[in-house]
């Protein structure tokens, strides 16, 4: 097996690529496809699938070099679920044909992905999900309801977890698929949230046909496949590197500095406490990134999303109290369809309300605390009555 490429070798490939593909004159899509084919999409992916088998730590430098050259972007915020969740799952559990078919248009943004996991009756307890997939000829018939699906209205494909065997314990009877969002029987309805926006959707599946070649992993192995997806979700929700005051604390600190007439001793104390907490979280994130780069992944990742949610809620709550009368005014209750959360661009009331979702979406803070307590600290698990009985017999 050859040595993985080092930073200089990877940068040399970027330079060669840019010399051969002038960002100013190459068609955007042609450029992105060529970048994928040159292994410069995600350098830690294997050759042939957009990567070079290089260390993940080199990716940031590659992205910077492309940005500096004015290269077209694949607009990662728009295709975050594909990049962050579907791709790692397809890479790890997909067949060669599936990887060949899906990864390139996923990365270039030609095909948008969404995630069909949560259900009305299966939130924290995802493994209780009830969407049924029944074997039929060379494929499966799928019926059920999914919820909290962002981007479903834009998506070409979905990653989908289903119940294929109700007669075995819940973790054993699940199967993971790629679902064609344009197939007959797929209905997407906007789901309005407390901010008034509809970032998310409900997705109703009625006798949707999925060919067996769109199954990801073995029949009955859906839970294990889903773990890959969920681990990647929490990593991406935790966020990237930030400068000091780079998060919501920066918004609050700016208001504090610019509006001396609002200051009180009591709020000052709270502000400083939150500043300390935000800076501690930022440095913890930085340290975690350094650990990962050094190949020493630590359990601190489980804490990042938990802390992010709490901080956002406390900071946005304080901001409203600081603003007083202005904090009682909202910008717009209209039902917007944006699927990107714009904390900085909306009113302080929006920040306060939207941040309430941070401790629910992508694993509630309660579930994250269980994970820390049981998997990190090794405390005994909650007594479980649901692991050994058939899914169909579970109390609900």
């Amino acid at each position, binding site marked *: 097996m050859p040595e993985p490429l080092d930073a200089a070798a990877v940068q040399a490939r970027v330079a060669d690529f840019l010399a051969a593909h002038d960002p100013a004159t190459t068609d955007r899509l042609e450029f992105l496809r060529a970048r994928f084919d040159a292994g410069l999409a995600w350098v830690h992916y294997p050759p042939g699938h957009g990567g070079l088998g290089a260390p993940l730590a080199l990716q940031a430098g590659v992205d910077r070099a492309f940005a500096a050259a004015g290269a077209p972007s694949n607009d990662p915020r728009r295709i975050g679920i594909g990049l962050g969740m579907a791709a790692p799952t397809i890479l790890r559990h997909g067949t060669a044909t599936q990887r060949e078919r899906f990864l390139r248009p996923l990365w270039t943004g030609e095909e948008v992905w969404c995630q069909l996991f*949560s259900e009305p009756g299966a939130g924290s*307890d995802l493994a209780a999900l009830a969407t049924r997939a029944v074997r039929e000829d060379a494929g499966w018939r799928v019926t059920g309801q999914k919820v909290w699906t962002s981007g479903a209205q834009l998506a070409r494909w979905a990653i989908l977890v289903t119940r294929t065997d109700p007669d075995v314990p819940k973790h054993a009877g699940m199967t993971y698929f790629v679902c064609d969002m344009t197939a007959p029987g797929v209905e997407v309805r906007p789901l309005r949230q*407390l901010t008034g926006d509809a970032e998310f959707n409900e997705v109703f599946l009625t006798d949707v046909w999925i060919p067996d070649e769109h199954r990801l992993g073995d029949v009955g192995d859906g839970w294990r496949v889903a773990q890959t997806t969920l681990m990647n979700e929490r990593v991406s929700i935790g966020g990237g590197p930030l400068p000091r005051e780079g998060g919501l604390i920066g918004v609050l600190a700016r208001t504090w500095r610019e509006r001396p007439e609002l200051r009180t001793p009591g709020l000052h104390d709270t502000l400083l406490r939150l500043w300390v907490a935000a800076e501690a979280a930022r440095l913890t994130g930085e340290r975690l990134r350094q650990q990962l780069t050094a190949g020493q992944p630590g359990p601190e990742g489980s804490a990042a999303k938990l802390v992010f949610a709490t901080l956002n809620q406390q900071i946005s709550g304080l901001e409203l109290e600081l603003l007083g009368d202005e904090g*009682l005014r909202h910008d717009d*209750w209209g039902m917007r369809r944006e699927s990107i959360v714009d904390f900085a661009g909306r009113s302080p009331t929006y920040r306060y309300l939207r941040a*309430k979702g941070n401790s629910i979406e992508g694993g509630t803070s309660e579930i994250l605390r269980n994970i820390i307590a049981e998997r990190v600290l090794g405390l005994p698990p909650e007594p479980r009555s649901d692991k050994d009985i058939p899914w169909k017999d579970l109390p609900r």
Partner: protein
Amino acid sequence: MTDLLYSDVEEDLRASVRALLVDRSPAPRVLARVESDETYDAKLWRTLAVELGTGGLAIPTEYGGAGASFREAAVVCEELGRAVAPVPYLGSAVVATATLLAAGGTALLAELASGTRTAALAVPFATGPGAPSTTVAVTGGRLTGAVRGVADALPADVLLVPAGGGLYEVEARDAVREPVTSLDQTRQLCDIRLADVPGREIATGDGAAAAVSAGLTAGTALLAAEQVGLAEWCLQSTVEYMRTRYQFARPVGSFQAVKHRLADVWVGLTQARAVARYAAACLATGDPDTPVAVALAKAHCGPVAVSAAEECVQLHGGIGFTWEHPAHLYLKRAKADAIALGTADQHRAALARLVDLPGPLVEGEAA
């Protein structure tokens, strides 16, 4: 010792207000209303104020009121908080009424008592009982100026406007009232503009300031009662959901971590009820401890209601984050109430003066 319990009369009053609200203002109807052009429920208000006669509870019989007190009115506020009902009770039957009573009583008081008209004190909603600054000028009995973010003024017939050192009654139709997109959708604020409009002076100088302060003091005390009712709905609905929502093949409420959090909400609520009752009782009897009681109530009940509403959203999980579920109406009301009539922080600062617990010495200041 001050009576911190509810009398039989108060419990009867509570029962009739609650029955009305359950029947006429269930959560889906409140949600539909706040999305309509008329966010206040005029019909419900008429029934509440006129037919149930709650509009004049705190008004003496000589002005045609019920001759009860703000204790009884506080019970109404608890129920209105429990239902996040979109009616101008706090603004008209509490703040404006207390202001008018302190100003010496006018013909308007009788109209408020009979429920034929409603009034609102034209000060920004976040203004606490300390002296509010005036943004309206008076020239030859005519008022010009603007007041931003006023509560319960949209459905009001009369505005009580502090202006140029006096206090004036202004016909609401003479003012321009611009509705504000408000955090609390069930109590929509408005911006008021007065352009050379006639006003009737009802108090001057210290009397005017004292009347406004009395209005805001009563409003603060009864807002605490509203926060108690609101927190109670949040706790009850969450407990109910925790009993019936299954995850991991068991009711979510069987997890000890969840139980402990709800137990903490309950503990805070028992205290909130005591301090809110104390504030209403002090107000009703003119107790000299009223300023302390009111600051204490707002400093304690605001955070209790916010945390009850936040726990309600969080423990309902995904469904609590939707527009369709009423939890958000309570969250928005709770957070807005925590800012209205002064934040907990401002009331703690007021307590520091009232109970002689001054802050650290500032350089150059004498001890």
